[in-house]
């Protein structure tokens, strides 16, 4: 590595000193975790039982006073071996375990798996099934963003917005329950289509939500984004430069808030997204406030998408004929959807048997969390909580 260019302080190192190899673009330090032998600093264990770790995340934090010197995400407290379990499940049974991976937006994992299976087994999907999938995914995205927006306010100390957003989320969950029969563990999207058609009369509760969604969200925006204290807490905190976001493979709103325009719904349209008109909001600075703004705007866009999907819902079958004991030919495929957290991919390897040979879940939050080491160092404890919250981590999906 000695032929690599030497930069900064290292260029004035005394003769004979070995320069450290250059760091990858976007990194300030070698992500070697917390030095637990540095006794002059305080080592703080944040979590796994802590109000603001959004599940069972354990952050190992090295503190100097209140300043974070180094931080390390320790995950795995929710590891259920979903990838291993998937190897013993048939294709139509997979929804039950995949819902439990990203439990906040199960439809996205289900759809990614269905898309992968359909690609592998060459199954045609009726147009209506694609539209229903898009509809439930967008509803799920709003529900998921509500569950992000509320707690990030709580991380900053504001309790009220969380409970206001729960009210809207409840309306969505009621709709999703009417559609799929479950509020969170849907098991509704299957290879070939969806389990059953949209129920009659689903229009009314959906339109009721559409009528208030923008207005109520605007109120929450006033309460959070319009508040000086909230702005002071979020602006300039947890800044992720575009190259840092790329270096850590971040995707979704975290990547877009750094100013990189990448949304799978636009880049590789799947389901009904090719026929729908919507915008992809982008950030400029890449701080926590940008991530807040991008996600709020995404909810507005989702409302727009749901309205179009509802107006243009095609007639027809909700699923194509698929054998119960599906045996896709041997092969390997990758299919991905834009989940609320980013690119959620299913990498499926089949050996021609009734169960997948290997199923890999490319979890967006897993990669988004990878930036923690780089992101949190240098901030205060309070910044750490806000930065971590702004990444939108879901531990079920990270640990799998």
């Amino acid at each position: 590595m000695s032929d690599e260019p030497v930069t900064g302080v290292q260029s004035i190192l005394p003769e004979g000193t070995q320069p450290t190899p250059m760091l990858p673009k976007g990194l300030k330090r070698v992500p070697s975790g917390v030095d637990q032998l540095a006794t002059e600093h305080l080592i703080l264990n944040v979590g796994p039982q802590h109000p603001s770790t959004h599940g069972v995340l354990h952050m190992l934090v090295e503190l100097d006073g209140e300043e974070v010197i180094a931080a390390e995400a320790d995950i795995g407290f929710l590891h259920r071996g979903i990838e291993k379990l998937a190897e013993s499940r048939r294709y139509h049974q997979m929804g039950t375990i995949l819902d439990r991976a990203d439990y906040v937006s199960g439809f996205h994992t289900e759809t990614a798996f269905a898309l992968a299976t359909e690609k592998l087994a060459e199954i045609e999907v009726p147009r209506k099934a694609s539209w229903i999938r898009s509809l439930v995914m967008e509803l799920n995205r709003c529900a998921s963003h509500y569950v992000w927006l509320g707690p990030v306010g709580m991380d900053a100390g504001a309790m009220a917005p969380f409970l206001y957003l729960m009210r809207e989320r409840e309306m969505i969950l009621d709709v999703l329950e009417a559609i799929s029969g479950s509020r969170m563990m849907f098991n509704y999207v299957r290879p070939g289509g969806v389990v059953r058609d949209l129920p009659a009369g689903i229009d009314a509760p959906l339109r009721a939500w559409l009528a208030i969604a923008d207005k109520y969200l605007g109120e929450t925006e006033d309460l959070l984004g319009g508040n000086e204290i909230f702005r002071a807490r979020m602006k300039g905190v947890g800044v992720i430069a575009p190259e840092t976001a790329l270096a850590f493979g971040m995707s979704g709103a975290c990547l877009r808030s750094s100013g990189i325009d990448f949304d799978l719904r636009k880049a590789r349209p799947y389901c009904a997204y090719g026929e729908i008109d919507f915008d992809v909001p982008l950030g400029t600075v890449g701080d926590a406030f940008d991530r807040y703004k991008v996600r709020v705007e995404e909810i507005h866009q989702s409302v727009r998408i749901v309205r179009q999907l509802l107006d243009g819902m095609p007639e027809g079958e909700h699923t194509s004929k698929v054998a119960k004991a599906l045996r896709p030919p041997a092969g390997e495929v990758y299919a991905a959807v834009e989940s609320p957290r980013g690119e959620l991919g299913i990498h499926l390897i089949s050996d021609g048997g009734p169960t997948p040979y290997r199923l890999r879940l490319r979890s967006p939050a897993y990669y988004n969390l990878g930036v923690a080491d780089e992101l949190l160092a240098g901030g205060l404890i309070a910044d750490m909580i806000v930065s971590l919250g702004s990444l939108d981590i879901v531990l079920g999906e990270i640990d799998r």
Partner: protein
Amino acid sequence: MPAQRVADILAAAGVPSAPSDELLGAVVRLEASRVADALAALLAEGFDFFLDLFGTDTGEAIELTYHVRALAALDDVFLKVVVPYDGEAPSVWRSYPAVLHAEREAAELLGVSFPGHPNPKRLLTTEGCDPFLRKSVAVRSAEEVRLPRE
């Protein structure tokens, strides 16, 4: 991007590889020891987005798949290397820091190692867990699991 183009890029960097276009996309197979050089070459060619690293137990060895993408051109490339059980592949974190967690995960769940990793600890499981993504490790119920006691 056809797999042959990727193989040409790698050949220019001095890494021999076997390209093939599959249902998956452009797949390039190469020696495990050269994967760090190969990925460094791809990064320099604009493959700026690292998606995933995971391992598969093929029954004879562990196959590691590196998935990278050129965001601007939307080209996906899958690099596949084969390492023996308990074998090793060089850590590629200096090209793609995103791989840090994925390497730790692959190391513990498949029993391979990644020399050069800055923080080579276990990630998801505790000390003493089997590398259970190997086919030889059966799915067991909670009652059957016995962690080694001191």
